[in-house]
């Protein structure tokens, strides 16, 4: 009898997803807050772009929020990430402030890159975000170099290397995975596979069925996760980060997800159907999925969720106002930061 009830309790615990065992209610509430922060930030950026307040282009990750947050959840504050052109979510997940991010998009001196980088180079070095990157796969060897630094300095840091499915066919990806593996560097490769490199589907571009299959070629674990399920992503990330921190080397995580928006502002969505997009939006939205779990496991009720949403709306509105009110750079300072200013 006793044994029976014990095993029943055990099996119930096994049915509780990883995140709901590993993290406190406060932490889980904050995950939801950050999911909304990413989504509302990007909606705010999109709206500002439409109004002509932001120029250039941007690549939105709406629909991929669980992936960014799940991967970053197990990181320490001084761990590092490299990000991609679709990097707003990574930046927020690693602890950036949305007011300084908006300021960067508006080209202001209070922005993270003082108006020099914009959306595609958003970074927050103080929080360990070494930067988004405009070159597909450009950040991959840089992440491995940061991991080499961590190993040489014996500082225990782990580096997360985000990239998209498009990067898996770049030479830099293959060279980097090989070197990270032979030297057992503390890096986790995270492919956010949203199905399309711009307009070209992974089915058309990639010889293997899953990008995680590439890991076998570099003698590292290859893990596939549902990128829209926060808990599944956090569980995979946690295992990979622990392995890296133990000195056992890299892991390749393939986080299968979907971007609701087009590749960039020029995208006319000719390469995918409305039905496909709607299915992902309506049935597999990562925020809706996470909210239903929060309700199911008694973390937040509808009122609690509404409270999170409202606080984010205000934070975003304040952040946009901060960006609008911030000063423009002086064109006389246009050559600043090309080289390091030597103290004299």
């Amino acid at each position, binding site marked *: 009898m006793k044994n029976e009830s014990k095993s029943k309790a055990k099996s119930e615990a096994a049915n509780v997803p990883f995140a709901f065992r590993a993290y406190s209610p406060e932490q889980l509430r904050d995950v939801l807050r950050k999911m909304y922060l990413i989504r509302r930030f990007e909606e705010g950026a999109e709206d500002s772009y439409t109004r002509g307040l932001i120029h250039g282009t941007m690549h939105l990750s709406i629909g991929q929020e669980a992936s960014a947050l799940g991967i970053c959840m197990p990181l320490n504050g001084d761990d590092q990430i490299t990000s991609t052109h679709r990097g707003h979510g990574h930046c927020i997940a690693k602890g950036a402030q949305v007011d300084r991010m908006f300021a960067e998009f508006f080209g202001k001196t209070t922005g993270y890159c003082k108006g020099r980088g914009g959306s595609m180079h958003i970074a927050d070095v103080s929080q360990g975000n070494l*930067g988004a990157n405009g070159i597909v796969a450009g950040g991959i060897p840089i992440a491995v*170099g940061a991991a080499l630094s961590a190993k040489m300095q014996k500082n225990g840091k782990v580096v997360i290397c985000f990239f998209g499915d498009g990067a898996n066919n770049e030479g830099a990806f293959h060279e980097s995975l090989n070197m990270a593996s032979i030297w057992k560097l503390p890096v986790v490769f995270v492919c956010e596979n949203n199905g399309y490199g711009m307009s070209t589907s992974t089915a058309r571009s990639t010889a293997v069925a899953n990008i995680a299959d590439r890991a076998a070629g570099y003698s590292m674990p290859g893990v596939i996760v549902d990128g829209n399920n926060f808990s599944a992503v956090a569980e995979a990330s946690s295992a990979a980060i622990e392995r890296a921190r133990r000195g056992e080397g890299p892991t390749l995580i393939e986080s299968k997800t979907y971007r609701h928006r087009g590749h960039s502002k020029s995208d006319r969505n000719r390469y995918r159907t409305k039905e496909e997009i709607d299915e992902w939006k309506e049935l597999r939205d990562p925020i809706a999925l996470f909210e239903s779990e929060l309700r199911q496991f008694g973390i937040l009720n509808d009122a609690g969720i509404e409270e999170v949403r409202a606080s984010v709306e205000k934070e975003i509105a304040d952040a946009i106002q901060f960006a609008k009110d911030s000063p423009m750079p002086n064109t006389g300072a246009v050559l600043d930061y090309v080289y390091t200013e030597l103290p004299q």
Partner: protein
Amino acid sequence: MNSAVRELTYSQAIQEAMAIALESDPRVFLMGEDIGVYGGAFQVTGDLVERFGTDRVIDMPISELGGAGLAVGAAMTGMRPIFEFQFSDFATLAMEQIVNQAAKMRFMLGGEVSVPLVMRFPAGSGTGAAAQHSQSLEAWLAHVPGLKVIQPATPHDAKGLLLAAVQDPDPVMIFEHKLLYKVKGPVPEGHYTVPIGKAEIRRTGRDATIVATSIMVQKSLEAAEILQTEGIDVEIVDLRTIRPIDRETVINSVKKTTRLLCVYEAVKTLGIGAEISAMVAESEAFDYLDAPIMRLGGADSPIPYNPELEKAVVPQVPDIVAGIRNLVQGRR
């Protein structure tokens, strides 16, 4: 001055600089292809792996793009890598990381990071290695804001400029001419630096200025001896750094001599000589010129294999002698 002037080869001087950097700064490490037990394709790293171990003298796979990127990432996160390309030609495989990442990272991030990275490029023709192992690509990189590009011409400068590069907070690209590796010259013991961005007057003269880079400095000095016997007194400016250019030294020399010949091994068209010529033409030195500015550079051709053809596509001493004669005597 030391009474006994110690002489080292250019490659020994570079190796000594790297050893000093490794000894004095735990952030410094070397990375490249076959730089460990093999000692480097040109034996520049030599036995450094025995002295400093495989953790600091890292043999990497043949992965120039990835390796360059690792060096960029390491430099951004507290290390001071010295990265060796086996041949400068192989930089073409790594241009993404050099041009898009290393050069621009500090700027793109609004000054939040520096990239204290040194890259070494064995360059130039004269070894019979043909078109893919003999190029002089320094102007490609000198076109990129954010990089510093140097071309030491002597063992003394090879050591001092490398030690300056290791201290520099920004990416420094060092082009070493392969034919200079065995050239001997005086090299002080211990740590010293040669400033990046400063040219050196190798020979003073009054009739014409030669602005030369790398191995062309030696060839110009030989040409100057011949010209001296004809009563033509040539001043030779060793540019040493091609980004940033030492404008002042070049312009002052041209104002003094009133004639300018630029001599460089890289393809003449759109090369460093074009930049020097334009810079002088745009400056106050233009009014002092007594003859058109002339350039001697590589032919618009890949480097051929046949040794006579190989010599024919880059400036040689007689070409420099003839070039200066024409400038001074007004024959063109």
